């Protein structure tokens, strides 16, 4: 009796394990699901009236680190100046860049107004990056809906957002153009940008 039960248990465990191991790859997130989860979580954080502004900023930073490839974004935002920057400049810049984004956007976080979003679909990016563009529609209580495309890149098994495109306007390019202007108007010095970013932290 007993050996038979043990056998059954073992068999059960075996099949369960088999089931899980098969389920694991099947459950790998699609870019659409990934953006969906990220968006739901963002709305949960934004809509949580109990959070203090500081807590909301921290939650935002956590989501940013989890969902976005911030080192890559920061690097691309610096554009061609990345190459000439020293190792010390790069690491300080990357840190300041993330703080800058957190600061910039967390100011706007208090303005959440009941917007919802809908995944409208995903498609391969029209270039050779292998990225997926996940299109969402942000539905606003007042005003027409806004189309936002999330450029999602797969790195190994993890998915990360590398650009956000609102009505055809790339946040990455906007930021890059601004930083490039700051550097250009300071005689091409990356330190000038770092300095400006540092002073903003105060």
């Amino acid at each position: 009796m007993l050996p038979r039960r043990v056998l059954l248990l073992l068999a059960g465990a075996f099949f369960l394990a088999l089931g899980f191991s098969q389920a694991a790859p099947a459950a790998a997130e699609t870019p659409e699901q990934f953006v969906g989860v990220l968006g739901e979580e963002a709305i949960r954080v934004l809509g949580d009236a109990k959070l203090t502004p500081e807590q909301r900023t921290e939650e935002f930073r956590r989501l940013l680190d989890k969902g976005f490839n911030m080192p890559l974004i920061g690097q691309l935002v610096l554009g061609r100046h990345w190459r000439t920057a020293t190792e010390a400049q790069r690491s300080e810049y990357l840190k300041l860049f993330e703080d800058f984004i957190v600061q910039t956007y967390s100011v706007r976080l208090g303005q959440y107004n009941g917007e919802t979003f809908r995944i409208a679909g995903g498609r391969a990016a029209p270039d050779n990056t292998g990225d997926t563009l996940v299109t969402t529609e942000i539905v606003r209580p007042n005003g027409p809906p806004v189309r936002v495309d999330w450029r999602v890149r797969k790195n190994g098994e993890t998915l990360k957002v590398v650009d956000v495109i609102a009505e055809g306007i790339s946040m990455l390019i906007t930021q890059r153009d601004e930083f490039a202007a700051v550097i250009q108007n300071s005689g091409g010095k990356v330190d000038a940008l770092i300095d400006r970013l540092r002073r903003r932290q105060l």
Partner: protein
Amino acid sequence: MERSIQRPRPLLAALSVVAGLLGGCASTSSTQATGSNATASNEAISDPLEGMNRFIFSVNLAGDKLVLRPAAELYRFAVPRVGRDMVRNFLDNLETPVILANDLFQGEFERAVTTSSRFVINTTLGFAGVADPATNMGFVRHEEDFGQTLGSYGVGPGPYLMLPIFGPSNLRDAGGKVVDHFLDPVNQYAHNTDRDYLTLVRSGMSAVDSRERAIETLDDIERSSIDFYATIRSLYLQRRAADIRNGEAPAFPDIDMTDEPPKSATTAMKSE
């Protein structure tokens, strides 16, 4: 109280709204894809008159602070949202002939049908355009202008220009604005009957209405920018490029390409 109700919108939505305003386009662009795959994102911005442009920008900002923004706030205070929407609908309807002409110039016949249907429906059922029943009937507004028409035939933006009063533009779009002005039947009528003030009244109303819709957004962008001029320039140029692509996503900025020295203006002209 109304301020907080009006207060838009998370992050991205805000940006696109203002970009729409800056591009002279309050509505969302169509998702119709085109075959062209402009790589505006990897092109150097052409702004040879930057010094002058920055100066005009600061004059415009001063004018905004003194006149336009206060007018927009007064407008928001004095006219309820329903009324402001009526104003916007009316102004939008007046623009449809120019949009239709440009739809046709571009050979976009389906869009031309949409534009003409909107005009007929909104002018009649919409009480001379103050209401917009056409949208609910499936005829959704899109924007076209002669600058976009030129862009669709491969004319590049040329140097960026900050126009006095009119704001961000470029050589192509500024020229397009002039063409659109003469295409406009209301302007023609006003001119032929010695009522040129009508054109001014209409532009003034449009400016105040657009400014009212962008109060928070522009504040937001100004506050979060370390170079406001450069941010507006980027938003304007991207918005125009996106309108010409009819909403297709831009190319991804490639690190290797951004490592290259800035491209010449001719490359920019060709590939857009």
